[in-house]
């Protein structure tokens, strides 16, 4: 199991007759670079195609090949697709972690292992299935060099038989996954079938887990947050993209390149309606975005924490000189290089204020792939409306993992290009100054180079309403105060939180981003396990809207759930809430690099609420970390 979770083994083995349908998690433990990704995605997809809600999470090391990787698939009939802490079915392929993986399982879990690992005697309270992979693969794959790559399909075949995953769906998923690679499909199909047949003849079902067809995923899609974000950018009419490779962000611009080449090349001329540049670093990326935004383009970049740090100086320029741009932050674990391939919500505080001086930025916080898509479009509109950077705060869990979702709606609103000055407005206004607050909302009118309207000089140094250099105290204060007014106006425009009130409830929860999935499930656990009702507010943007304060007013104790150590969002709330509201706030924090799970939220809440003691929870110490290589 990935470092961070633990289990104790005291309970007796489960009776084999129990059936648990569409409610379990599978964990495949392999080494990265072994080609297991195809097998894992095929398994995920075939359960999805059977209509069962499912999610897949890859916990991988920061290196290219040879280090431990865990892939978790969770099937859940009720649609809970956050990470499940407990592993019900372990597929042990990695000799290096097998022992520890097995020792940390809950009693009653099943283990499918590579025969030479001889794991059977490690525990008496588990179900074991042994599979001689090398022997089977040698029979179906004559070319010894290719065996390593198809070996993993054998466990898909075995699982198909043991769990009842339809072989037809497996085959369809495999074909979808491998596309036009005919030879590879043939080889993998052979391995899949060999696994199935082996299980049929040699294994006897002893665990309770089964998949049965449902209709809950009908019409739905499976997509990664980064691909969804890319799609949103394309539909938002992005024209200039500058980026620098970094995990877990790279797949966003890379997917975008694919989409743009297909859908944004002029049919008649074969020319591109977009420019995508792999810049020399993140400073150059944001510089290009700012240059392009200033010249009127819809421009964006995508990065992770280290990139945000580098962009800091430019972010202040964009704030102060009022230049639009969109920045995706696919958050990973910091500080510094941190755990580059693990997830966190650790950039919230820095990003809200990134840069020196009094600076504040708009942040949008997607929780789902659909929001990655819609918020990409919101981000461009807000960036142009408010002439500032807008940060879309995704994370590795959302960005790089596959999530099921309703298909995305086609945008039915035109673009909001904000207050671009035109001749008529100029005549109406009579006088124009780049930083004049004509409408009282703090938002000035802007012109862009080449539009033939009055030009101005853009600078990060002190300036007056006309954009002229000024060091006068009154000009400076006036300008900074207008920027605050503009930020206040933004509260009316950003996506409002999603509120689930629970009149008379004991407690309330505030969450954001991917923590949503754990909280959503935890609400049910609290009810069932402790008879506790909790209200829930999911933040979707910074600056906060009024909804936040009034929500807190309605409850006694309000827990802010986040995936960082320092309660960053709670910190942002402290900056603007009244002291009586602040007094109600508490924290539930999760920051071990793994996606937050419902069990952890529920347990933490119950302990803080005095309904459980710390000692009564599953003891939680674990074991060796992953040795990370590259970054």
């Amino acid at each position: 199991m990935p470092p961070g979770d633990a289990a104790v083994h005291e309970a007796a083995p489960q009776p084999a007759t129990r059936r648990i349908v569409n409610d379990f998690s599978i964990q495949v433990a392999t080494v990265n670079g072994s080609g297991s990704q195809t097998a894992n995605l095929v398994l995920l997809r075939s359960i999805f195609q059977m209509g069962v809600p499912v999610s897949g999470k890859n916990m991988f090391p920061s290196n290219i090949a040879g280090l431990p990787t865990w892939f978790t698939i969770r099937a859940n009939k009720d649609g809970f697709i956050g990470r499940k802490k407990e592993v019900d079915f372990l597929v042990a392929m990695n000799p290096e972690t097998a022992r520890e993986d097995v020792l940390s399982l809950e009693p009653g879990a099943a283990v499918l292992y590579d025969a030479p690992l001889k794991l059977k005697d490690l525990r008496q309270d588990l179900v074991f299935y042994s599979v001689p992979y090398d022997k089977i693969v040698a029979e179906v794959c004559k070319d010894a060099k290719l065996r390593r790559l198809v070996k993993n399909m054998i466990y898909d075949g075995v699982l198909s038989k043991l769990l009842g995953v339809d072989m037809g769906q497996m085959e369809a998923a495999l074909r979808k996954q491998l596309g036009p690679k005919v030879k590879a499909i043939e080889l993998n199909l052979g391995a899949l079938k060999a696994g199935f047949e082996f299980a049929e003849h040699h294994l006897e079902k002893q665990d309770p887990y089964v998949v049965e067809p449902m209709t809950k995923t009908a019409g739905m899609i499976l997509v990664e947050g980064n691909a969804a974000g890319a799609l949103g950018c394309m539909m938002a009419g992005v024209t200039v993209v500058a980026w620098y490779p970094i995990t877990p962000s790279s797949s966003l611009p890379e997917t975008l390149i694919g989409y743009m080449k297909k859908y944004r090349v002029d049919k008649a001329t074969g020319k591109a309606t977009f420019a995508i540049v792999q810049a020399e670093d993140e400073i150059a990326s944001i510089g290009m975005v700012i240059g392009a935004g200033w010249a009127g383009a819809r421009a964006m970049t995508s990065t992770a924490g280290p990139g945000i740090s580098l962009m800091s100086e430019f972010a202040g320029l964009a704030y102060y000189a009022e230049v639009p741009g969109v920045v995706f932050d696919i958050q990973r674990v910091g500080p510094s290089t941190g755990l580059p391939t693990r997830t966190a919500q650790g950039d919230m505080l820095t990003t809200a204020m990134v840069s020196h001086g009094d600076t504040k930025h708009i942040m949008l916080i997607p929780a789902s792939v659909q929001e990655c898509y819609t918020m990409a479009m919101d981000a461009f509109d807000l960036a142009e409306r408010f002439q500032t950077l807008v940060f879309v705060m995704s994370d590795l869990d959302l960005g790089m993992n596959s999530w099921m979702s309703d298909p995305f709606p086609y945008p039915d609103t035109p673009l909001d290009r904000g207050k671009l000055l035109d001749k008529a407005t100029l005549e109406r206004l009579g006088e124009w100054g780049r930083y004049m607050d004509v409408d009282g909302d703090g938002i000035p009118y802007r012109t862009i180079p080449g539009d033939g309207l009055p030009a101005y000089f853009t600078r990060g140094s002190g300036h007056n309403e006309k954009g002229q250099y000024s060091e006068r105290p009154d000009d400076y204060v006036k300008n900074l105060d207008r920027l605050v007014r503009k930020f206040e106006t933004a509260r009316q425009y950003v996506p409002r939180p999603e509120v689930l009130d629970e009149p008379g409830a004991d407690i309330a929860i505030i969450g954001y981003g991917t923590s949503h999935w754990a909280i959503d499930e935890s609400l049910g656990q609290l009810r069932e396990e402790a008879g506790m009702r909790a209200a829930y507010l999911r933040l979707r943007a910074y600056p906060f809207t009024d909804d936040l304060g009034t929500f807190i007013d309605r409850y006694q104790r309000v827990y802010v759930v986040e995936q960082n150590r320092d309660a960053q969002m709670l910190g942002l709330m402290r900056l603007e809430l009244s002291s009586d509201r602040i007094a109600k706030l508490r924290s539930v924090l999760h920051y071990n690099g793994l996606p937050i799970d419902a069990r952890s939220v529920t347990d933490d809440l119950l302990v803080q609420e005095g309904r459980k003691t710390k000692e009564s929870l599953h003891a939680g110490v674990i074991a060796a970390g992953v040795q990370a290589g590259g970054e």
Partner: protein
Amino acid sequence: MATKINRIGLEMQPYRGGKTTLCAGCGHNAISERIVDAFFEMGVDSSQVVKLSGIGCSSKSPAYFLGGAHGFNAVHGRMPSVGTGAMLANRKLIAIGVSGDGDTGAIGIGQFVHLMRRNVPIIYIIEDNGCYGLTKGQFSPTADLGSTLKTGIVNDLPPIDTCALAIQLGASFVARSFSGDKKQLLSILKASLSHRGTCMIDVISPCVTFNDHEGSTKSYAYAKEHDEVLGEVSFVPFFEDISVDYDPGTTKEVELHDGSKLYLKKVAEDYDPTNKFEASRLIHEAARRGEFATGILYIEPDKDDFVTLLNLVDEPLATLPLERTRPGREALDEIMESLR
């Protein structure tokens, strides 16, 4: 005397900018004046020009020319990325960037390198005084070995030669000049307006306040004495019908992007400004003699610029209508289907 009118019917006045706040006698001011002259004489429409800079005394100067153009005073050393973004947003713009030797050679060397590599269509001027003017006179990376500060401190590191670097990296128009050589600088600037691609122009521009003393190799006196003019630069813009006579073998004729012509008198029989290796050799040999060669050092008139490489549509990306930037419903349907 009748006021001079240029080919688009404008007087000189609109090409001027705000009143300079730089020191009297600063080389940067003379360069601003030449920029005004060049844009006036070439009849450039200021509303289509963007002026860019980083931070420094030099970087302030875009406020002092072309008042009718949009300006962007970016952050220290990062003007290249801002300029790149602006040119991608609107390929029709004419971009002129002003940097300093600190802004380019120190904090901004990375962005400079990549701007040259990409051959982004920008006129990139380094106002080179061998020191940091705005922070009061520290050495910059173009200070020559052995050059001294006013305080007597000796520079013991070798200089970065921005022209040699630009040539090696792929800039397609590389020149060096001296703020005191009005005629040459004007010809170079005018020629740069006819070129498509990065025009890297390093102009020795003495800082009268911090680096004009004896012992400095970037002082007026030193520059006058060690300026090795490569030979006359004659530029004939496309809109002027002038023929230039020259003896074959003595002059190199280069046709520029917009049809203008450049006549470069050869210093030495074998020197060819379209040959990278020779241009680099010339720069290094002059430096070895303690001189600096000025003129158009290298030119590659037909090299694809970055906008061309990216195969952008002819219209500015910034103002493309929604129909061209948002794919239709069928596209989204197709993508959704592929994800099912």
